[in-house]
């Protein structure tokens, strides 16, 4: 450990603001990329669900229309 105390570590010889804001932006950027990826992943899952729901609706409509036809012959 180069620094004598924790406060000296935070202070960075007067350059604390610069060093720590750089660190913050760096990890904020990388973190945002990771978050965005997981958010996109959730969107894709939603899309898959929507797809499944669509297929179900089509199925239901089809069975309803065939029932109607068999219910009213001629």
């Amino acid at each position: 450990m180069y620094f004598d105390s924790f406060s000296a570590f935070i202070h960075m010889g007067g350059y604390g603001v610069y060093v720590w804001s750089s660190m913050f932006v760096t990890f904020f950027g990388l973190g945002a990329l990771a978050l965005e990826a997981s958010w996109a992943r959730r969107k894709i899952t939603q899309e898959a669900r929507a797809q499944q729901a669509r297929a179900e609706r089509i199925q239901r409509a089809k069975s309803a229309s065939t029932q109607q036809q068999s219910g009213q012959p001629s």
Partner: protein
Amino acid sequence: MTSLLEAKGIRSIRGERTLFNQLDLCVKTGELWQVQGPNGAGKSSFLRIVAGLLPAQAGEVRFRGELIQTIRSQYHSNLLFIGHKAAVKPELTAIENLEYYAAIQGQPLTAAPYELLERVGLVGLEDIPAQRLSAGQQRRIALARLWLSSANLWILDEPFTSLDVSGIAMLHERFSWQLARGGSVLLTSHQPLDNIPVQVNMLNLEYQH
């Protein structure tokens, strides 16, 4: 039967050519009128004049006996106009498009939108952006407005374009509903309206050279 819409002595000139002159039309409640004529006869222009989108060079259009220019707001809240451009936003889904039209027609989409879209044959396509649908399917989104509308007068420019047989039958059925409740329909169409269960009044436009 009272007169709902009355056009008198309408003249339209596009460029150098007179499309029609001294054209009269009287639509009563419970009537369906078809404007017929060859390409370029001015069917669309006539509908747009009647709807108040286009000024006529001469003549006047009255709605319930009043000039449409003087009662514009009232007229337009009693009118449903669907032009040959479908006014369906390609970026939005069928449901989102309907939500918008329901809101501006004063009928919040309370009736299940899925049911409505099923009725117009868009099952399974409700939440897909309209740009990924076919021309006929986009047309059906626009025509779904007929199921949201409480307007007395429907003006439809070529409503059957790019519709298949089932779509046409669906429209016919809706027209009879509108007439039965005392509304009126004014439309253009190239083809004669076969198999329609209501009486069709014809207005023929000639091509003027």
